[in-house]
């Protein structure tokens, strides 16, 4: 391709012949395995996290099985871990939900958002050829592998994987005598967590540098698509919150291996074992953990919010309602996110006066979320809504996030939290924001950017079937959890039916388990559609959705270096249905006016 054509902004070379390095076998390793290309790294993240998603989903099913039919033989899986002929032991149950949450949060949601979508989209949407530091970027993926191994291996060590809950509260987690699986399992858990942390840290500083320094000419900060804003602020959150968890993780590791006593009080005797030296404070861990993990819940939703904002505008053919308020509200969520961690500790024995301040700040964090919700509604209002699979997932994100967010208000109210803390009400809350929210956003993103990733589109019909079933089953599973919570049904119990208060709840739990099975089964449709479309789906052009942002000006899939011309940005990302323009969308690279457009065409 000649330099002359390459530097002319033009969309007429539609096909993707400008591929990446296509050398022979010698190139295979550097192209597909140890690639420094952000797109390949993004896809590596995507595949790894989807596989772990499957693992996390199966673990969830095992959890559901035990909750619905305690101590009954587990079908299929039971053979694998048969301790008592297919029936699970209580410590096995605690391990299940601990690892379910660990896998879902640290190996699925965080890396799929920041790792997969962040990597794939950031350079493309800002008009860069790659990340600022490609090698570092590659490392951030490969640092996930020690974590994969640590978490994976922990299932097979003596005593089993970690079983202290994903929150890993001491002294259960620090005192080896306190539970059978708090031996190697817990140690490996901490090691895995540290590697995930290093990976995220490397990623986040790289993303920030890239977004600050490598935007295409004309791409001012306030012309960035919401996806990029969200990724940027998420990176900031990660950079500032994660080191605290890393530090805390090391401290817990030392408590377990070296005999320091940061989190154990003096003379703490567990299970009649030797009293530890101690002198520390169990609540310190909770503070450090939630100082990270509360911001982390926003790390787990902001990118999805960004992607959903973009997808809603594309399929409503309308500008985003209130672009700047949307940006400020993300920043607001991130900022406030640092001062609300104590709402997880209302019942922990923390000073109740401190609880009041955390309660007020938590109430306030609903405000930026309110701004976002109403602006999404505003975006749909007066639009021309196209019900693509991606759009359905995006709309359901909004619908479900409202449920998850509103249940947060119950818990933020400290007196109400006295009753619902550590009940299924909380479980309902976070599955609504995490699964019904973020995971739906992720699916919206996958269906939307699939053409850019693989140059082919996913099957719409089966996509909609997948959406429909997932939507129905997820509400069947998780909405009813609110009701369990209202009865006070405690979470993390292998069997709660021996309590007089809860024994009548078994049928409802069985219903939820049927729905959960249906939900996981429906994903077969997704997996099949995904894999089939990757190879045999209909070819997509550069811009199958008539969207505005920069990635749609690049070939599908983009070659090495992403752009076959110099993108120059002339406007914001949401110029849909602009009055007086023939096309219903103006791409960010489209020249400012018709005359200029004609001139450009003539010059070509």
């Amino acid at each position, binding site marked *: 391709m000649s330099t002359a054509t390459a530097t002319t902004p033009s969309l007429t070379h539609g096909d993707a012949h400008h591929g990446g390095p296509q050398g022979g076998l010698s190139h295979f390793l550097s192209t597909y395995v140890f690639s420094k290309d952000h797109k390949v790294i993004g896809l590596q993240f995507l595949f790894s996290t989807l596989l772990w998603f499957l693992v996390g989903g199966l673990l969830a099913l095992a959890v559901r099985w035990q909750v619905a039919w305690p101590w009954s033989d587990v079908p299929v899986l039971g053979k694998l871990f048969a301790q008592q002929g297919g029936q699970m032991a209580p410590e096995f149950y605690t391990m299940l939900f601990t690892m379910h949450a660990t896998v879902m949060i640290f190996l699925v949601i965080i890396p799929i958002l920041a790792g997969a979508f962040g990597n794939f989209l950031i350079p493309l949407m800002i008009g860069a050829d790659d990340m600022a530091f490609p090698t570092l970027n590659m490392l951030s993926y490969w640092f996930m592998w020690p974590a994969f191994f640590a978490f994976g291996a922990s299932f097979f060590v003596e005593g089993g994987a970690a079983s202290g809950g994903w929150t890993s509260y001491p002294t259960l987690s620090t005192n080896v005598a306190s539970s059978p699986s708090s031996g190697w399992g817990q140690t490996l858990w901490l090691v895995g967590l540290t590697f995930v942390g290093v990976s995220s840290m490397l990623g986040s500083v790289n993303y920030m540098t890239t977004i600050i320094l*490598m935007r295409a000419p004309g*791409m001012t900060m306030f012309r960035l698509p919401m996806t990029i804003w969200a990724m940027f602020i998420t990176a900031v959150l990660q950079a500032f919150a994660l080191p605290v968890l890393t530090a805390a993780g090391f401290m817990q590791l030392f408590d377990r291996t070296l005999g320091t006593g940061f989190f154990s009080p003096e003379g703490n005797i567990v299970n009649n074992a030797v009293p530890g030296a101690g002198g520390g404070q169990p609540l310190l861990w909770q503070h450090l953990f939630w100082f990270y993990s509360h911001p982390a819940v926003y790390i787990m939703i902001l990118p999805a919010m960004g992607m959903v904002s973009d997808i809603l505008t594309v399929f409503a053919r309308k500008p985003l309602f209130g672009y700047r308020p949307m940006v400020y509200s993300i920043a607001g969520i991130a900022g406030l996110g640092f001062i609300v961690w104590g709402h997880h500790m209302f019942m922990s024995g923390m000073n109740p006066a401190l609880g009041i301040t955390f309660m007020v700040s938590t109430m306030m964090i609903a405000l930026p979320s309110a701004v976002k919700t109403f602006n999404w509604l505003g975006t749909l209002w007066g639009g021309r809504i196209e019900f693509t699979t991606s759009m359905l997932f995006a709309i359901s994100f909004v619908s479900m996030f409202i449920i998850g967010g509103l249940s947060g208000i119950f818990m933020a109210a400290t007196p109400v939290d006295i009753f619902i803390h550590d009940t299924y009400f909380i479980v309902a809350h976070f599955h609504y924001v995490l699964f019904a929210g973020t995971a739906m956003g992720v699916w919206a993103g996958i269906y939307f950017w699939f053409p850019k990733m693989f140059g082919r589109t996913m099957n719409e019909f089966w996509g909609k079937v997948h959406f429909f079933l997932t939507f129905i089953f997820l509400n069947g599973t998780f909405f009813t959890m609110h009701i369990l919570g209202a009865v006070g049904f405690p979470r993390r119990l292998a069997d709660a039916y021996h309590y007089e208060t809860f024994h009548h709840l078994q049928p409802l739990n069985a219903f939820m388990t049927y729905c959960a099975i249906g939900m996981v089964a429906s994903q077969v449709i997704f997996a099949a559609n995904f894999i089939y479309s990757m190879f045999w789906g209909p070819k997509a052009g550069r811009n199958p959705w008539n969207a505005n942002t920069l990635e749609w000006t690049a070939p599908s899939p983009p070659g090495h270096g992403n752009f076959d011309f110099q993108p120059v940005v002339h406007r914001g990302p949401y110029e849909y249905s602009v009055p007086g323009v023939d096309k219903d969308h103006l791409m960010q690279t489209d020249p400012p006016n018709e005359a200029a457009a004609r001139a450009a065409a003539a010059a070509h």
Partner: protein
Amino acid sequence: MNASAITIPHDHGHSGGHDDGHHGHVHLQYQPGLPLSRGKLIMWLFLSTEIMFFAALLGSYVVLRFGAPVWPKPHHVHLSEPIGAFNTFVLICSSVTIVLALEAAKASKTGLAKFWMLLTLLLGSLFLGIKAYEYQAKFSHGIYPVHPRGLIYERPDLYYGSAVRARLGEPAIIDRLKDLDETPADQLTAEQRTARTSLQQVRKMVGSPDQQPFDLAVVADQIMPLPTAHVGGDHDGGHNGHARGLNDIFPWLRLPIVIPGGNMWASTYFLLTGFHAVHVAVGLLVFAILLGYTLGPKNAPMIENIGLYWHFVDLVWIFLFPLLYLF
């Protein structure tokens, strides 16, 4: 739209290590949001994550220390302010020398730059050496955390008594005690002779079935006396500022000791200084690698970035020193 936004600024340092070997794709131009090179920006961002890391550690220290009912005085735990202060001085000097190295490199005085760099490396190593010496002083007194529990006890209680008894009952110790008892008095120094008597007393006290907390306090004092404020702290003989106890005179004894608050002190001290030392070591490694390059203007940005890091490491120590040694 706004025409000025479309002007194409110059691409600042395409330093990302991107090999341009592939078929000439477009060399893209960017509009940087900050007048910084990529390397410098990412270093600043990396340092902000480091700030949070140490903030978490320091915050934990503060919480644990002020939540603890007692906290040992520096002399209870063999901490020497002069050594700490000297080490602070060493580190500050190294911060100066790295700046000088940068200046020299910018002025193309590559030899001089190398000299300053080497000096920085040496000063950093000296810091680590002194740190190692300090650690050794703690270790030799049994001040370190061990799993499931170390030698340090919070108070002379029954657990302590039985720990001392258990140690004295170990076969190896019994043998050495027998040797000691049989050694003719003239082969011992005066100090050892008195110590032998008090050791016999200690053995009797912990051996008796109805020991009183008061007795155990005496035992603890014999094994490792803690200097009190009025006894004069620093200068009443002995080494490192306190009278010598049984553990000092017969180092093979390694009897459990009593330092109120000592466990948590040891945990936090080694945590903070340990992570700081790891950061120093990483810096030294980079210095060593850089010494293999020509330190001219071309590599000045690299020196500047590692210099930033080095100043940060220095700054952390400036916080650690007063917190750990002075307050």
